[in-house]
């Protein structure tokens, strides 16, 4: 029930983000969600894409340093306290969130969040146990 995230190393200088989107666009890859973490010198672009292998190959050919990471896509109840309940539960199980960001596609009455947990396997089974909907990669990429 894991999903693949593609991370790209970016120097903090003009035009680098556009270079990534250009490469993906030319390879016919659609961006499903993204988050950018940065410092004054460099950034890490994290992407959920519809065609991972095509994207990795295109980005590597364009000279980018790329890495695949396992993340979990989890439906979070769209109401006050929805995310809080999830986080408190995960915390209680001794699992840490390394980072998280929101997925753009709307699903019924829930928000969809991408989580990077320190222990991805434990997190996914704990969430399923509690009844949280974890969306698998194949479904996610085409949502």
């Amino acid at each position, binding site marked *: 029930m894991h999903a693949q995230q593609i991370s790209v*190393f*970016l*120097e903090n200088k003009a035009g680098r983000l556009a270079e990534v989107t250009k490469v993906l666009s030319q390879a016919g890859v659609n961006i499903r969600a993204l988050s950018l973490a*940065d410092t004054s010198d*460099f950034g*890490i672009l994290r992407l959920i894409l519809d065609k991972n292998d095509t994207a990795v190959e295109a980005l590597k050919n364009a000279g980018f*340093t*790329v890495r695949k*990471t396992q993340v979990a896509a989890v439906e979070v109840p769209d109401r006050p306290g929805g995310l809080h309940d999830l986080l408190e539960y995960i915390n209680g199980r001794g699992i840490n969130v390394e980072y998280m960001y929101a997925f753009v596609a709307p699903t019924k009455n829930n928000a969809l969040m991408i989580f*990077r947990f320190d222990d991805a396997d434990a997190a996914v089974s704990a969430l399923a146990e509690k009844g949280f909907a974890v969306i698998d990669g194949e479904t996610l990429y085409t949502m």
Partner: protein
Amino acid sequence: MIFNMEFETLPREALEAIQLRRLKAVAERVYATVPFYRKTFDEAGVKPGDIKSLADITKLPFTTKKDLRDNYPFGMFAVPMENVVRIHASSGTTGQPTVVGYTRRDVDTWAELMARSLAAGGATSDDIIHNAYGYGLFTGGLGVHYGAEKLGASVIPISGGNTKRQIIIMRDFKPSILTCTPSYALHLAEAAEEMGVDFESLLFKSGIFGAEPWSENMRHEIEKKLYLSALDIYGISEVIGPGVAMECLEAKNGLHIFEDHFIPEIINPETNETLPPGATGELVFTSLTKEAFPIIRYRTRDITSLSYEPCICGRTMARMKRVQGRTDDMLIIRGVNVFPSQIEAVLMDMDQVEPHYQLVVEREGTLDTLTVLVEVGEKAFSDEIRDLQKLEKEISHNIKETLAVSAKVKLVEPKTIARSEGKAVRVVDKRKL
């Protein structure tokens, strides 16, 4: 294999007798034919006849790069132009180029020394040599070329550049010896990987790398990526070109100087005093047999040390350590001497980082700052900021530990540091002094 068994294994005593005879002759000759030497000898109050023993070489004045520039282009030639058959020149990246000339016999001597070098690196007449040193005014390409022919090997005069074509030639011709700069060797490895050509499937036995300083760690990196034995060769155009000294395949521990043609000395670059064997300092060369461009006590600005210990390969010639830096490459950062090769060694000791780096020196107010740019490859990349920041801190910490200088480390994308096809640009000094 030893190419010239008679000379390369001469007993020390016999070698020194030849050196002394040749030293006396060259001193006489330059005094008689080159006005510059007559002037500097006179100023130093020394006559060629004062050379009675090899130790008397220290009575002779030094020759510097500046002297060669002052006599640009042909002022240091010791024969009329009708006897000069070849002219080479240094690139001139650090100022006016220095020009050197060769008679027919000089070209032949040089070919002999390069043949000795190639043989020391494992080459025989059965080998195909892929010569990726640049052909032209630079001595690398033609120097190796003539030596390869002298040895009877088959030489591919591919020269530098057009890397893709080089990989295709390697794949199709299956050369067994690679000659190029060490940074270009790594560049070839990268390019081959991108083209899906595996060096393991090629037939290289050894690589003979020189023309820029490199490190023991870089040797391991090259050997791992190119599946060959990586050897160090030394030469500068002012002395003759490549083939002044060469590591042997057997020991891979120091470069044998062809002492029947050159006398090496190590001096303290600040006080100019001669240092004993084993001491580290500036390498100084006197040529003994060159006709067109003899040179007396040339200050190479290369930092190394000499060893006269016997070698397992059987050669009796002295060995110089791998060049550790250059007196003019040396950066002084807040009073600390820093050689780019030291930073390289720190990086290569860390598994995660690639040996692609550049040092940027700037001056903020009165304070020098050193920034080390390091490329982030797949091994080092993490999707978490704090891991990368940790890596930056680790590199910076290791530099501080080893060199006692603070450096800011900046991670950059792969291939953003200029890969020259010849010599890598390792230092950008933006200080306006």
